[in-house]
C-alpha cells in the first residue's frame, strides 16, 4: 500500500507541469493556432515567476508574474501569427528557442548579480511552496495522502482544468472560440470578433504555460535556479494534447498517466532495462494516434483551422 501511495503521489507531482502545458496548448489550438512555443512560454514563465518570487518573497506575486510573463511570451507569437500572418509552426519553434535563451539569460544574470553561485528563493516563499494540508480531508487514512497532501500548484492545476472545460464547453465565449478554431470565416460572418478572441485565448494559454514553467523552477528544482529547468516538458505537453483529445478534463488524466509513466522506472524492480521505461510514454502516444485515427469523431479532433492563419480579405 505504501508503495502505491508513494508512486501515485510521485505521478501526480510529475504530471502537474505537463497539465498546465496541455491546458495552455488546448486553448491555443481551440482558437485555431498550433503553438509549438509551449516550451518557450514555460521557460519564460519559469524565470518570471522565480525572479519575482526571489525579490518579493511572496508566492501570489510569483504566480501572477509567471502568468503575466507567459502571456507576454504568447503575445509575441500572437502578434506574429494573427496580425502579421507568419507561419505558425516556424513562429512557435522560434518562440521556443527564444524563450529558453531568454529564461537562461535572465536567470543566470540575476544569479551573477546576487554574488553567489546559487540563487535560492527566500525561506518565506519556500514554506508556502510546501504541502498544503486541508483540515480533516488530509487526515483521512490513505485517501487523505493520495488526494489532499500536495503543494498549491496541484490543486491550481486541477481547478484550472475544470474551469477551462467549463469555459470551452459551457459558455458562450467558449462556443465562439471553438467556432473561430473550426472555421474563422464563418465565425467572422456571424459577427464574432475573430482577431480579438485569438489574441485573448493565445495569451490565456500562454499564461497557463507560464504557471507550468514556474512549477519547474520552484517545485521541481526546490526553489534553486537551475539553467534550462523546463528541459523538454513543454514538448511532451504539446504531444499530450492529442492524448487528451483536446478536452481539458481529459488533460488531467493524460497528465496523470504520463506523469506515472515518467516515474515508473524508479518504482518497479529493474528486471527490464530502464530505457524501455523511458520509451513507454512515446509508444503510448503512437497507440493513441492510431486509435483516434481509427475512431474518428468530430468532437475529439483537432480544430479544423488549426495551423492555418485567417486572412479576412481572402474569404
Amino acid at each position, binding site marked *: 500500500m505504501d508503495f502505491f501511495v*508513494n508512486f501515485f503521489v*510521485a505521478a501526480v*507531482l*510529475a504530471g502537474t507541469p505537463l497539465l498546465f502545458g496541455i491546458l495552455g496548448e488546448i486553448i491555443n489550438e481551440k482558437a485555431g493556432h498550433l503553438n509549438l512555443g509551449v516550451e518557450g512560454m514555460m521557460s519564460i514563465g519559469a524565470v518570471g515567476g522565480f525572479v519575482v518570487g526571489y525579490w518579493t518573497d511572496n508566492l501570489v506575486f510569483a504566480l501572477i508574474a509567471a502568468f503575466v510573463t507567459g502571456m507576454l511570451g504568447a503575445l509575441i507569437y500572437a502578434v506574429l501569427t494573427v496580425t502579421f500572418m507568419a507561419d505558425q509552426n516556424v513562429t512557435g519553434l522560434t518562440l521556443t528557442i527564444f524563450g529558453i535563451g531568454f529564461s*537562461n539569460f535572465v536567470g*543566470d544574470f540575476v*544569479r*551573477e548579480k546576487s554574488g*553567489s*553561485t*546559487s*540563487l*535560492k528563493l527566500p525561506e518565506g516563499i*519556500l514554506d508556502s511552496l*510546501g504541502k498544503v494540508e486541508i483540515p480533516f480531508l488530509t487526515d483521512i487514512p490513505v485517501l487523505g495522502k493520495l488526494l489532499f497532501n500536495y503543494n498549491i500548484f496541484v490543486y491550481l492545476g486541477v481547478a484550472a482544468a475544470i474551469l477551462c472545460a467549463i469555459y470551452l464547453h459551457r459558455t458562450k465565449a467558449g462556443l465562439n472560440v471553438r467556432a473561430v478554431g473550426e472555421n474563422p470565416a464563418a465565425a467572422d460572418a456571424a459577427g464574432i470578433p475573430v482577431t480579438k478572441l485569438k489574441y485573448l485565448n493565445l495569451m490565456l494559454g500562454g499564461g497557463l504555460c507560464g504557471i507550468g514553467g514556474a512549477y*519547474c523552477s520552484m517545485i*521541481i*528544482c*526546490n*526553489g*534553486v535556479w*537551475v*539553467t*534550462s*529547468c523546463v*528541459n523538454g*516538458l513543454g514538448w511532451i505537453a504539446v504531444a499530450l494534447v492529442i492524448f487528451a483529445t483536446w478536452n481539458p478534463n481529459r488533460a488531467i488524466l493524460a497528465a496523470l498517466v504520463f506523469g506515472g509513466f*515518467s*516515474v515508473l522506472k*524508479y*518504482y518497479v*524492480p*529493474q528486471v527490464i*532495462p*530502464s*530505457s524501455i521505461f*523511458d*520509451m513507454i510514454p*512515446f*509508444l503510448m502516444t*503512437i497507440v493513441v*494516434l*492510431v486509435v483516434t*485515427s*481509427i475512431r*474518428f469523431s468530430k468532437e475529439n479532433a483537432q480544430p479544423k483551422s488549426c495551423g492555418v492563419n485567417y486572412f479576412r480579405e481572402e474569404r
Partner: protein
Amino acid sequence: MKKKILGVLLSLAMVGTLMAGCGQQQGVEDQNASKTDSAQTEESADAGEDKEDGKSNFAPVAKEDLKVGVIHIGDPADGSGYSYAHDQGIVEMQKELGLEDSQIIRKNNIPDADPTMTEQAMRECIEEGCQIIFATSFNYMDTCEALAEEYPDVIFSHGTGYKSNDTNFNNYFGRIYQARYLSGIVAGMKTETNKIGYVAAMGSENSEVTGGADAFAIGVAEVNPDAQVYVKVTNSWLSPTEETNAAKALIAEGCDVIGQHCDTPNPQTEAESAGVWGVGYNSDMMNDAPKATLTSVVWNWGVYYTQAVQKVIDGTWTSENYFGGMDDGLVDITPLNEDIVAPGTQEKVEEARKKIVEDGFNVFDGVLETNDGKTVGEEGKTLDDATITGGINWYYKNIVVK
C-alpha cells in the same frame, strides 16, 4: 474511409521509424562498447607511461604568443555543473600563468554528439592561432583524433576519453573515485536508517558512473557494514526532472543520505525539503542545500590545465596521458558541513585521505565482492587504470539496484 486507412498507415510508419531509430541507437552503443574494449588493451599498453621518453615535439612558445582553445559542452555561466567546473580550472590556469583574456578562446555550448559543430569549433580555434585545444567532453574524441592528424602543430588535449597518439593528442582524466570513497565515509557515518541513496546518470554499462558508485559504496562499507546503497539510474547526464524524481523515489524508500553522479543540485535540494541529507557533486552544493549537503565531491581541473599549459610554454609538452588523483589535488571533497555531519567524521576522513595520499591505497584493492555474488580483483593487487576507466560494470556487494 480512405483517410482512416491513411491515418493508420501513417501511424504504423511512425512506429516503424521509431523502432528503426532504436535499432540504430543500439548499434551505436554496441560500437561504443567494442571501442571501449579495444581501448582497454590500447590503454593498458600506454597507461601512465611516457611514450617518447619525455621528449617533446614542440618548441617553447613565448607567453604573449600563446593562445589556448577550450571547447565546452555547456555554458560556463551556468554557475555550477560540468562546464562551470572545467572553466573554473581554465580561469585558475589563466591567473596562475598570467595570461590575457584574449589569449583564451572559448567555444561554448558545442554539443558533443554533433561532430560537424565540434569540428567547426576546433577549426575556428586553430584559425585564431591556438597552440593547444582542451576538449572537455567525451564525444569530442574522434574529432580530436582526426584533426590531430591534419594539424600536427596543434596540441589536442581531450578530457574523459581514452584515445591518444604519439605526438600531439593526449587524454586527461582524474581519479574521482578516490574522492567518492571519502564521501562514502561521510555518508556511512551519517545514515540512521542504514539506507543510502545514489542518483546515477548512467547504468552499469558506464564504467565511470558505476566505478564511482562502487567507490562510494566501499567508503560506506568501511565505516558502516550494515548500510546499503540504493542506486537509481536516470539515463541522462543532465535532467532536472529525472534527478528530482529519482531522489524522491529514494527518499520514499527510506534513504536518508542521497549521493549523486549527475549535474543539477536537485537531489540535494530534494533531500533538504524532505529533511534528509546528501552528498553533492561537481560544485560545492552546500550553497544550494545548506541544511542537507554534508560535503560535495569536486574536481579541481586547474591543476591539470596549469601544468599542461606551462609545459606548452616551456616546450616540454608530450602526449603522455594524465590520470591525476587526490595527491595532485585534482579531485577532493569540499570542507565538511560541520553543523550536520556525524561526530568523528572529520577524523575518519583524514585517516582515509592519508591512506590514499601517503600509503598508496587505491580504493579498488584486493578481492572485491560484487552484489551478484561474484568476486573481482586479486589479493595483494589493485585494479589497473584501464579497468577503472573502462571495465567496471559490476556493483559492490552493499549496492541494491531496484
